[in-house]
């Protein structure tokens, strides 16, 4: 039986945005709420399938456990890595205060 999904509310969307560390504008909230509910409605077709006995395939190729030899090698130079950082101090990434 196809049933309509429970639509995403504005509050739920705000919670999702918070989890994803996103801040949305008023316009984005309204567009996204309607887009998201349309997309979820489309997903509802999957609910009609009988999948109880089916195994999951999280990966498309059945090859696993490809490990390289574990040996020491040079990484990138510190100054090259820090060159792209927004803020740096004493050879380290500088971030806003995390622990008061």
């Amino acid at each position, binding site marked *: 039986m196809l049933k309509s999904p429970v639509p995403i509310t504005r509050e739920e969307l705000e919670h999702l945005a918070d989890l994803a560390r996103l801040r949305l504008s008023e316009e984005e909230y309204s567009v996204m709420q309607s887009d998201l509910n349309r997309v979820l409605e489309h997903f509802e077709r999957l609910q009609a399938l009988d999948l109880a006995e089916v195994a999951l395939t*999280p990966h498309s190729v059945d090859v696993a456990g490809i490990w390289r030899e574990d040996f020491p090698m040079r990484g990138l130079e510190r100054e090259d890595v820090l060159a792209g950082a927004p803020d740096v101090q004493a050879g380290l990434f500088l971030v806003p205060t995390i622990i008061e």
Partner: protein
Amino acid sequence: MKLFELSAAEMRLRLDAREISAPELLRSHLDRIASVDPQVHAFITVSEDRAMEQAERAQEAIDHGQAGPLTGIPVALKDNMVTRNLRTTCASKILENYVPPYSGTLEERLLDQFAVIVGKTNLDEFAMGTSTEHSAFFPTRNPYALDRVPGGSSGGSAAAVASKMAPLAFGSDTGGSVRQPASLCGVVGFKPTYGRVSRYGLVAFCSSLDQIGPFARSVRDAVTAFEAIFGPDPRDSTCVEMPYNAKRASIGEISGKRVGIPKELMSDAVDADVRAAFRGAVDKLAAHGAIVEEFSAPMIEHGVSTYYIIAPAEASSNLARYDGVRYGLRIEEGSHIDMMKATRAEGFGREVKERIIIGTHVLSSGYYDAYYAKAHKVRTLMKQQFREAFGRFDVVVAPTSPTTAFKLGERLDDPLALKLADYCTIPANIGGFPAMSINCGFADGLPTGFQIVADSFAEEKLFSFALGAERIISPEPIPLAI
């Protein structure tokens, strides 16, 4: 014939015969870019000086008898492929000024073979889209009709090859992002089996589906490009060593080949004119001895839903790294959480934010079983249905895109219409199968695509069939709009 009009294979012959030099060949392409890219907008960055140094090194390699199949050949890279000391933006404001301190495996292998990287091409931001309209910078135009999209997300690479700004380009294909733009721009686009090509240095979107593949104006050139880049890489544990027989790949035989067409890809979901062009091509192949039969793979109809659960789920996790701390944009604001939110609000476009939200939702507790787990079960069934088909058929063929190139802006407000553009290409990603699109002729002056899918790691079978199909379908070319 101008140099930029040649195939990569012909360029190689002339370079080796010393009829032309690598810098001269590059110059011809840079001039072409200067003349047509202001209309097409395929490139985000043209790396002229760097490319000229690479061309000079290529010429030295040729002079020392060290030329390989790509030596001296100008290539373009989608701008989600990391290039050392060359800006790599992913067409996103969050990486607008990002200059990588390292080379991805693709760049490394290309430069080891003395290919010449002319520049970085436009895409939908972080490869999320089917029209290249979601680039944070500008849309790319279709070289056959400048008011239409080139497809996406690798629209810049497809348009660059179609408009002869490079004989070869690379894109990434997660749900069709190489094949669909190849179809809309009338060129060859190939997505290898998942696991053939290293993803090290390909900015991650959906790690279990992403795969790098070439664009070219002939099957032969696409095969050459693939052969130059595939193979295991200690830096990507999903990239594996599997046999490949180049000789068998070049046979080109169609007669006696068993060809399956999935009914689900010949339904009303695909435009009638696209189906008609495809039917015409199939009839030609049958006349040359291909044994064609329809079959059913009902899970195809759930491909788009499956894809739009799996891909955003992985994307929401992969894009967590853009936090304003180590590289890319930072918007200073209060606490570290506020800084991250402000940075991501400013740095990501609407489509990317939407997919992050969808991904976060389908992975939330309480919804995980309803969406994410189900999608992976459908993946199991989809793979099974194709595997069964490959027991009966050498290849599976279908239209590449349900439509020809649509007008810019036409679908921007309809999130589903844009997503359905991947309807015919998603199954090969979900199953991990290799798949190629070749030109299938034109409908109302716009290219249509003929898609060929083979079993996992059966690239040689696919290439052999594609070479034959290209020769037999051989559509009458029509002039570009530039």
